[in-house]
């Protein structure tokens, strides 16, 4: 396995630092403990040491790069017996190297009639007459107007060019270097001018791996692009960790049956409501967040937003995508109200008729794949939310109680947490409160 070298945090509060210089060159042998590079912050200069033996295969962030975020991939060490050249030439396998950034949805898609997914839409390019600013790992690539135009004229991908201007800005000389370097960034897998990382395989390179005619090519729609961009961004920028518990839901199932049976029937002989297990899950998570208010938070760079209400976003699969409408103030709503809200959301989501305010925001989320028989999975957090609960199928399992095997209906739930906002113990408190509520649903009533 190649070893990724990440930008270290030199202090608990450090968010970014400057990569002053590399003390090893690509191709140099390194031993564990060798100093690889020097990092400087406004307070100190520190050394990055190799944690394993190998060969420095790739430098991703060049000497003198300022403001490199903590945990960004800065280089790669090839382990013993690995081909350093293959690593340096091939697509980057680094955690920080997200797939090729998707272009933001064109302005026309930013209207209310659909195409919106997973949170905030990209602000449309106001000028509309030039390429929007390209994104790299979800962040804007700073570039000069001249560099952008030259790259566009030469059909170069600006995100694949390493910037040498202030704060890594891509400037004219970088584009020129890329051009003279044989068009490295030009839809080819090789890194531009031998310096830039290749964040992902180019489209052409990917297609070459499959026989022509053996696939159908379906261009991305706005929703697909937004999903790709937002989740690639979230997965690479949010430090995720996962907590899993098994919840016995026999009591819940019995209560659900009783409640549904008690539903009054309307004129059309249909019951007034039909509560699903998922509605219980939404309610339980909402109440749990009220009981563990420290976890009912949103991370911002400047402060923690501690919420008063529990806004729970619920992932709804729709053809060719998904969308996450939000049950606002869910802790204040009865199960029937949640059920009817979800029914309305689901119908309008399929018709792509949800309004942006109905799917933007939220503090936590529920993603339930139980209906597909999934036992356990780990969902990606959708900013600005700080957690998401992945809910598996309720299934009969043998559980041991007081030394005796018995059968119970068990549902596995996994909480993905944003470590910047929620630490391990706090996440555990939240999930344990959730478990308590889901196993004794009467607790939600008080």
């Amino acid at each position, binding site marked *: 396995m190649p070893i990724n070298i990440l930008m270290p945090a030199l202090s608990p509060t450090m968010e970014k630092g400057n990569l002053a*210089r590399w003390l090893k060159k690509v191709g140099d042998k390194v031993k564990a403990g060798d100093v690889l590079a020097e990092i400087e912050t406004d307070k100190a200069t520190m050394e990055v040491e190799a944690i394993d033996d190998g060969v420095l295969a790739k430098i991703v962030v060049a000497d003198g790069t300022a403001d490199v975020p903590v945990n960004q991939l800065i280089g790669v060490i090839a382990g013993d017996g690995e081909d350093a050249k293959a690593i340096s030439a091939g697509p980057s396998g680094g955690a920080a190297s997200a797939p090729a950034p998707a272009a933001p949805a064109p302005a026309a898609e930013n209207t209310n009639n659909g195409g919106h997914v997973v949170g905030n839409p990209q602000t449309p390019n106001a*000028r509309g007459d030039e390429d929007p600013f390209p994104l790299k790992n979800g962040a804007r690539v700073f570039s000069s*107007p001249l560099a952008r135009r030259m790259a566009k004229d030469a059909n170069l991908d600006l995100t694949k060019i390493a910037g040498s201007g202030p704060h890594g800005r891509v400037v004219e000389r970088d584009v020129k270097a890329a051009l003279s370097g044989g068009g490295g960034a030009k839809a080819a897998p090789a890194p531009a001018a031998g310096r830039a990382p290749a964040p992902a395989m180019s489209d052409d390179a990917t297609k070459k791996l499959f026989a022509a005619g053996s696939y159908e090519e379906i261009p991305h729609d706005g929703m697909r692009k937004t999903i790709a961009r937002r989740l690639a961004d979230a997965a690479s920028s949010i430090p995720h960790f996962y907590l899993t518990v098994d919840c016995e839901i026999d009591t819940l199932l019995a209560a659900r049956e009783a409640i549904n049976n008690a539903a009054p029937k309307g004129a059309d002989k249909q019951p007034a409501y039909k509560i699903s297990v998922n509605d219980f899950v939404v309610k339980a998570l909402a109440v749990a967040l009220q009981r563990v208010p420290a976890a009912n938070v949103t991370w911002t760079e400047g402060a923690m937003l501690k919420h008063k209400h529990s806004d729970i976003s619920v992932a709804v699969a729709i053809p060719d995508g998904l969308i996450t409408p939000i049950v606002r103030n869910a802790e204040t709503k009865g199960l029937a109200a949640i059920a009817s809200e979800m029914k309305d959301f689901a119908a309008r989501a399929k018709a792509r008729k949800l309004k942006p305010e109905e799917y933007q925001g939220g503090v936590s989320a529920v993603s339930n794949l139980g209906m597909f028989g999934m036992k356990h999975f780990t969902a990606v957090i959708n900013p600005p939310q700080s957690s998401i609960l992945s809910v598996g199928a309720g299934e009969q399992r043998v559980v041991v109680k007081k030394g005796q095997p018995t059968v119970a209906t068990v549902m596995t739930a996994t909480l993905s947490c944003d470590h910047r906002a929620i630490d391990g113990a706090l996440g555990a408190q939240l999930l344990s409160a959730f478990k308590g509520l889901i196993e004794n649903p009467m607790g939600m009533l008080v």
Partner: protein
Amino acid sequence: MTTPYDILIIGSGPGGYVTAIRAAQLGFKTAIVEREHLGGICLNWGCIPTKALLRSAEIMHYAQHPDAYGLKIEGKVSADAAAIVKRSRGVSAQLNGGVGFLLKKNKVDVIWGEATITKVGEVAVAATKKPPMLPQNPVPKGVLGAGTYQAKHIIVATGARPRVLPGIEPDGKLIWTYFEAMVPPAFPKSMVVMGSGAIGIEFASFYKAMGVDVTVIEVLPQIMPVEDAEIAAVARKRFEKLGLKIMTSTKVTKVEKGANDVTCHVEDDKGGKQVIKAERLISAVGVVGNIENLGLEKLGVKTDRGCVVIDDFGRTNVPGLYAIGDVAGPPMLAHKAEHEGVICVENIKGLHPHPMDKLMIPGCTYCNPQVASVGLTEAKAKAAGYTVKVGRFPFIGNGKAIALGEPDGLVKTVFDAKTGKLLGAHLVGAEVTELIQGFVIAMNLETTEEDLMHTVFPHPTLSEMMHESVLDAYGKVIHT
């Protein structure tokens, strides 16, 4: 012997003192050696005092044309050479004191005397032998004296001095350099200015405004030879309108000194000869680097045409030895020296500064009309292989210019037709030295014509002409 310095700078001109302050900011123990005047030529005998003189010239010009503004001045407006010089010296003295204050504030040691680099890491300072230019500011208090000083890094920032043409050596009486020209005891009746670069043309402009009969002699076919030909032509027309006599493609072959005048024998490129008699001759044929008596030869420091050879970060071929500013080569401008010095010490600190792009160093000349430029002239852009788009906007089309009573001038922009890169900007007219920086920022940020067109310029200002010039290059100009 004192404790070793991290950085020792020889010369406290704009390059040297700015470098010293930046070095001190970076935490280096810093010293600066000066033999004569803090602030160097720029502040004491160059940029600053001449601006004071030219301000007097400007006001003189307005005072001579009060009717143009509906005013009447009763009685005669006259120039008092002594008072004008006194004001100019006062401006220098104030700033000279300011440099001393800044160095002290930043805990930079000032060593008074003449420096020789005895070996790598060591400088011997001896009492100043050079006779001072008068009037001289007092030696600042608290300076260190002659002795041997150690430093890890030595930066040569000794600047430049007037070039001397053989046979036309300045004598300080009849043949002046900028030193004497800056402190005239009285205004001569007539004057020849040899050389039409920034220094020559500024003095020509000043003395003309003071009523002196001035003839400018330039060996090249164009006055202000580094400027765009079109701009130089507009400037020349205006100079001649103001009464300046200008001879181009002409060289001074011989100068004969009389009791209180000089006789210049000149010859044009077609062999035509003339004799011009004038009370004074100003020799303004460029400057040469001060590379002598520093011990550079002994250390084997590489030089080229009178200047120290350096790399992008001011390093000479000798480790531990650096040079910045005029002594390190053209363009010999204070702002180039300052920037070079900052890059030099930031690099020593390991900060990875970006090398300077010399094409983006603006140049300003404060004659009447002013001239300012940055980047490639149209001719140089074409010579470099660019297909250019050129925009022009005349002052006559600008509301503010008309209101100011300054209808003469031109803003010219040169773009790469292929990429929209701004290759150069060239301006002549009122206040253009204050306008040029807008284009310098644009070039530094690599803006294209589109970004400049999208920029809103305030009305009514002269800066609107910058916008219109860009629009003109792309056929979108409004006010012509």
